[in-house]
């Protein structure tokens, strides 16, 4: 089971150019809005036509611009989940689920539908109309409706973005259970990096229609290959960088020189570290330890963001170099210590980005 995609689509704002292969593990496509992630999915499903390229699923060519092959969406055997569920509002839950099954015997339709209704925990709701269901239930109907056809691939286009946070987490768990059973290829499009991290093993990051990172999720989060990839994976601390020696980097925006563990990328551009990887230490002589002052703080329910000015007290609340996240309990312990504090940039946690 494998999906191969290598397509180009000209678009007034940008040119979408992506290529990847996906097997049984869910593949996440992460990108900001307008990065081309939804369009990629629509091209794969046959709802949009790429300008050129190739799409093949399990050795069956779905699209090949050179050979002039372009199967319509109805022949591609792909399940598609939309952001707003896209249920048929004039049909009941059961009719929605049976829609794709027409052409086979009624009894068989009901048997298959019942199976998915059970899977999606929709028992008792068969005769309801979509507007009589909650958002979570609607998305489960959409999932059942897609899976009842036993699609070779399941394409999820931000399926939880219309749900509120609590339901979202619940739906996400349910989806992961379903995906664990599912035999086909799954593509999961989202702009929510935490969601993509939880649901998928492998990730692709799109920016302006271009693939800027792809690989295992841990690898991407630990060492984003480019500046944009680092930003899109939520890294708050990035500085322009210049190599000083094979394991030392001058962080130009932070006015300091840092030891790094990672080997130097070919065209070094930036050095970065995630906000929760920074720690405060007492010992000021330690490697990669820099005196710092707090320029600004910002409270969230469970943690607090500290904006640090390095090497000298801040001129104003906007002149800061690093953002650190600490739990409130920790903050209570350290907040009354005299300045300067000392922040430690662990070489193992520092990552270097290059130009592609």
């Amino acid at each position: 089971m494998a999906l191969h995609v290598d397509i180009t689509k000209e678009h007034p704002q940008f040119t979408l150019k992506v290529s990847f292969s996906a097997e049984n593990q869910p593949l996440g496509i992460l990108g900001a809005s307008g990065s081309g992630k939804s369009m990629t999915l629509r091209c794969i499903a046959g709802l949009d036509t790429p300008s050129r390229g190739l799409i093949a699923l399990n050795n069956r060519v779905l699209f090949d611009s050179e050979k002039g092959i372009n199967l319509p969406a109805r022949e591609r055997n792909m399940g598609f989940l939309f952001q707003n569920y896209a249920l048929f509002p004039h049909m009941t839950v059961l009719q929605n689920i049976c829609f794709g099954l027409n052409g086979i015997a009624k009894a068989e339709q009901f048997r298959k539908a019942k199976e998915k209704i059970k899977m999606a925990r929709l028992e008792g709701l068969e005769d309801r109309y979509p507007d009589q269901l909650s958002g979570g239930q609607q998305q489960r109907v959409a999932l059942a409706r897609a899976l009842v056809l036993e699609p070779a691939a399941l394409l999820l286009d931000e399926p939880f973005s219309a749900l509120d946070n609590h339901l979202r987490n619940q739906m996400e768990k349910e989806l992961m259970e379903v995906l664990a059973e599912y035999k086909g290829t799954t593509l999961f499009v989202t702009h929510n990096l935490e969601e993509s991290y939880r649901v998928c093993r492998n990730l692709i990051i799109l920016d302006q229609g271009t693939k800027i990172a792809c690989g295992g999720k841990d690898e991407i989060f630990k060492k984003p290959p480019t500046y944009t990839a680092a930003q899109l994976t939520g890294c708050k601390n990035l500085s322009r960088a210049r190599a000083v020696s094979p394991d030392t980097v001058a962080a130009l925006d932070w006015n300091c020189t840092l030891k790094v563990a990672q080997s130097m990328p070919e065209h070094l551009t930036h050095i970065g570290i995630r906000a929760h990887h920074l720690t405060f230490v007492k010992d000021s002589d330690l490697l990669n330890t820099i005196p710092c002052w707090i320029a600004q703080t910002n409270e969230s329910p469970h943690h607090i963001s500290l904006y640090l000015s390095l090497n000298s007290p801040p001129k104003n609340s906007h002149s800061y170099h690093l953002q650190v996240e600490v739990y409130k309990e920790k903050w209570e312990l350290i907040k009354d210590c005299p300045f300067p504090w000392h922040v430690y940039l662990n070489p193992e946690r520092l990552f270097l980005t290059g130009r592609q």
Partner: protein
Amino acid sequence: MNVLPQLDLTPMWISLKTAGTATLITFAVGITAARWMAFTHFKGKELLDGILLMPMVLPPTVVGFVLLLIFGKNGPVGQILLKLGTTVIFSWPATVIAATAVALPLMYKTARAAFEQVNTDILDAARTLGATEMRVFWQVTVPLSWPGILAGTILSFARALGEFGATLMLAGSIPGKTQTIPVAIFFAVEGGDMAKAFIWVLIIILISLAMVLALNYWSKFQHDYLARSRR
């Protein structure tokens, strides 16, 4: 008031028959045109849209004149009919042609607007579930556009029923053959028979009022229905 027993009711039957037939044709042609215009892209689409809507904005006499040019003895369609040994001018079919021409834009416009407001994700969902374009149209687009289609049908019928100018030019006023209620009213007034005109006016007011009430009732239903389908 002893006009009633002598009143020749044929204009009413002709009117209803004409409006009914015109509505059937309008329904089929209007929906086909609306589907085509709503879901395909081609050069000159805007121009074609303009042409389809022309009969709605032009004076009916102009529509009648153009129809005469097309269906008249020297017109392209008229020539063909002549070769087949027939003619439509000043015959009952002419009333249908005139009524259809003026009613079609209403059906086309409302149906197209209804098709275009259907959420395209829902149509795409049907496609990914294996539905052919035909099935998508008849089982998804049309049911979700149903309120708009029905409103268009009622408007078309009302417009066809009230047609005067184009009908008079193309079909004339032959009592018992091409004389519809609006035409009968005109000639009754012209002939000084105000009582007869008055009765026809009453009848057409009643029919039109019933249509408008039906439409209003339907709009209310449509509002509820659409509120559901948009959610």
